[in-house]
């Protein structure tokens, strides 16, 4: 650490770190309806859905008579049992019955199964809705997490038609895990607005500001707030957006000045610092064009400490930027859009590992940036927006399987991706790597048949 701090300022040129803003800024849109309404604020908000319930109902069973049992006889038999309620599902010949008062399901099932006229009797298992967050903008705007093929109504001028299922399958993966609060995502960026309603409860500390040399990583741009929210915004809190990793925490690390530029030395310092702070995942929606062995060494340091690094490939439709290009230690993330097509700005090359949605992604923004009267959210595009999807996914995998190392988590993310451009480039390719990430395939059990 000391060595790096002494040597870096003299050996390394003060390489300008470019935030990948070229695509973000022009397309950033304040989340305000054209007519000035803030309709989503007035929508009814339901409470959190229960995570788990008993497997079967405590007072209901399903049964079916043998096919040769007359209907009248069956009805009479059911009456004789004294069930509290009987409902028939005619097309299947199945009866749903409420057990008699004071008689349990097990006892009822045993009684029914003793009757030779009854072909089968089984518990009435409970269902529940998939873990769908109640955040205001989830259903309408976050196609990246669950795409239903609707029109993405951003403004009067921007209303793209989306393709159903061109998403990262987050909603079904959340049934498996919503993340462990002990798992930390370090967002090395322009800082984080720690007062933002979708982030205030998620940051673990005020972080570290390497641009100004203090312990206050407050965002003076907007970029870091946006990427932090995509990865792990406060979710199911009835407002704003859903993050990929609902329950995981954010460690803010600031490596750029207010204009969105910084130096490799700050990023290197930040990677080392975040690793030493116990980060599980590092999101690097920053990068530069120069290959630097010290930057690679910092990435290796994190990798060797089982920290998963997700980094943006860049937005110039050119070569993969650094540190994303450090293939052994970093997941290089390209961008796709709402139709699962490669974003035209996304950098490409053999280092690309996976892709994630990076076009018109809704995320939080500082209130001062969007202006009073506007909601503190904006749409932005770029591989910067794609990258935190992968960081969030890595955090969920670490939450579910804490025993896995960085290398294994990186492979899971790669190997479970959807090859969405297979019609033109079958298999791994330089544009989206192994494909657009698929959280469900990575997190839900594979059923052996």
């Amino acid at each position: 650490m000391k060595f790096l701090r002494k040597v870096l300022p003299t050996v390394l040129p003060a390489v300008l770190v470019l935030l990948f803003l070229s695509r973000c800024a022009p397309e950033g849109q304040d989340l305000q309806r054209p007519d000035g309404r803030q309709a989503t604020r007035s929508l009814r908000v339901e409470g959190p859905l229960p995570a788990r319930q008993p497997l079967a109902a405590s007072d209901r069973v399903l049964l079916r008579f043998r096919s040769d049992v007359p209907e009248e006889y069956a009805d009479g038999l059911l009456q004789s049992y004294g069930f509290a309620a009987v409902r028939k599902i005619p097309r299947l010949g199945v009866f749903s019955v409420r057990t008699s008062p004071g008689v349990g399901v097990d006892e009822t099932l045993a009684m029914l199964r003793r009757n030779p006229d009854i072909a089968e009797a089984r518990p009435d298992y409970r269902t529940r809705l998939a873990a769908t967050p109640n955040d205001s903008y989830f259903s309408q705007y976050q196609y990246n997490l669950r795409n239903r093929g609707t029109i993405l109504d951003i403004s009067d001028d921007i209303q793209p038609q989306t393709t159903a299922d061109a998403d990262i399958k987050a909603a079904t993966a959340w049934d498996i895990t919503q993340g462990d609060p002990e798992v930390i995502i370090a967002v090395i960026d322009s800082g984080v607005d720690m007062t933002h309603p979708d982030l205030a409860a998620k940051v673990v500390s005020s972080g570290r500001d390497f641009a100004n040399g203090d312990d206050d990583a407050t965002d003076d741009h907007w970029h870091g707030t946006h990427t932090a929210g995509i990865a792990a915004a406060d979710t199911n809190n009835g407002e704003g957006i859903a993050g990929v990793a609902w329950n995981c925490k954010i460690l803010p690390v600031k490596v750029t000045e207010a204009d969105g530029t910084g130096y490799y030395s700050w990023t290197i310092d930040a990677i080392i610092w975040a690793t030493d702070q116990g980060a599980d995942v590092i999101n690097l929606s920053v990068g530069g064009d120069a290959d630097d062995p010290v930057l690679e060494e910092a990435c290796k340091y994190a990798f060797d400490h089982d920290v998963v690094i997700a980094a943006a490939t860049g937005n110039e439709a050119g070569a993969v930027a650094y540190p994303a290009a450090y293939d052994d230690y970093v997941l290089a993330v390209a961008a796709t859009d709402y139709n699962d097509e490669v974003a035209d700005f996304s950098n490409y090359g053999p280092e690309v590992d996976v892709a994630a949605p990076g076009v018109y992604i809704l995320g939080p923004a500082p209130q001062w940036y969007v202006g009073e009267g506007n909601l503190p959210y904006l749409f932005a595009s770029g591989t910067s927006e794609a990258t935190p999807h992968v960081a969030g996914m890595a955090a969920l995998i670490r939450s579910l399987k804490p025993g896995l190392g960085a290398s294994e988590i990186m492979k899971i993310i790669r190997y479970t991706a959807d090859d969405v451009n297979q019609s033109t480039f079958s298999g791994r390719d330089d544009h989206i790597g192994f494909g657009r990430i698929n959280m469900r395939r990575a997190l839900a059990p594979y059923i052996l048949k």
Partner: protein
Amino acid sequence: MKMRRGGLRRLAASGIGFFLAAAWSPGAEPTPLPFTAGVMFDHMSRTVVWEGETETSRVAVNCVSLRAGFDLGRGVTLGLSAGLALSDFDALAFLDLPISLELGSSVLKGVALAAEIEAVLLDLGDFEIGAAGRVVSSFGLARTWTLEDFAVPGRAEGRTNWMEASAAPRLAYHLSGGFVPYLEVAARWFRVDVRMKETLEDLQDAEKKRIKGDFSLSASLGGDIRLSDRLVVRAKAGIVPHAGGAGVSASLGLLFAF
């Protein structure tokens, strides 16, 4: 391969039919059969809790085997059998693997070997008090699955080994010459391990789920029914109570006497 409830009911009904048929048919006092050989079908299901888990699960085994029985004299018989066991682990999940795997409707095969000894300890006229002990073990055969829809080739390989040992006092009644039904209450000890290996190109890992020793009691009704001098039907059915759901055990066999 899991036995359907209708199948179990038919099995039980068939057993009862044999019992009744034998009970109503006059017969002489049973004479020892020095050597029998035949085919057996055994079904066993029980509620278990896998090591490291808290929720109950079910294990069901169907086994078809060839059986040889030897009369060792003094009321002691020895049975040896070998066959094929199909083990169903009811959606057992391997959640520590990089990609979690779950046994859906898959069964795992194994070579089952069993030894059984039965002895008459006390003859009380129409009643008889005896004991039975049985050890059955299944040595797993590997089963492989291709893991589809991944970006790289993948496969999983599963294998199970299990063993059940039981010992039971037995109360028999000389209902007729051809049929001596009995009631037994058995103490059953069961251990099992299921290994699953996962390979997705260079991502490899293995996980083992196991039950080191699960103890339970069962109550069974059974009997050997002599259909003729050379033909014997062996049937037994019982329940294996357990908090969270009772299991069942059933066996049916056709044996020839030599």
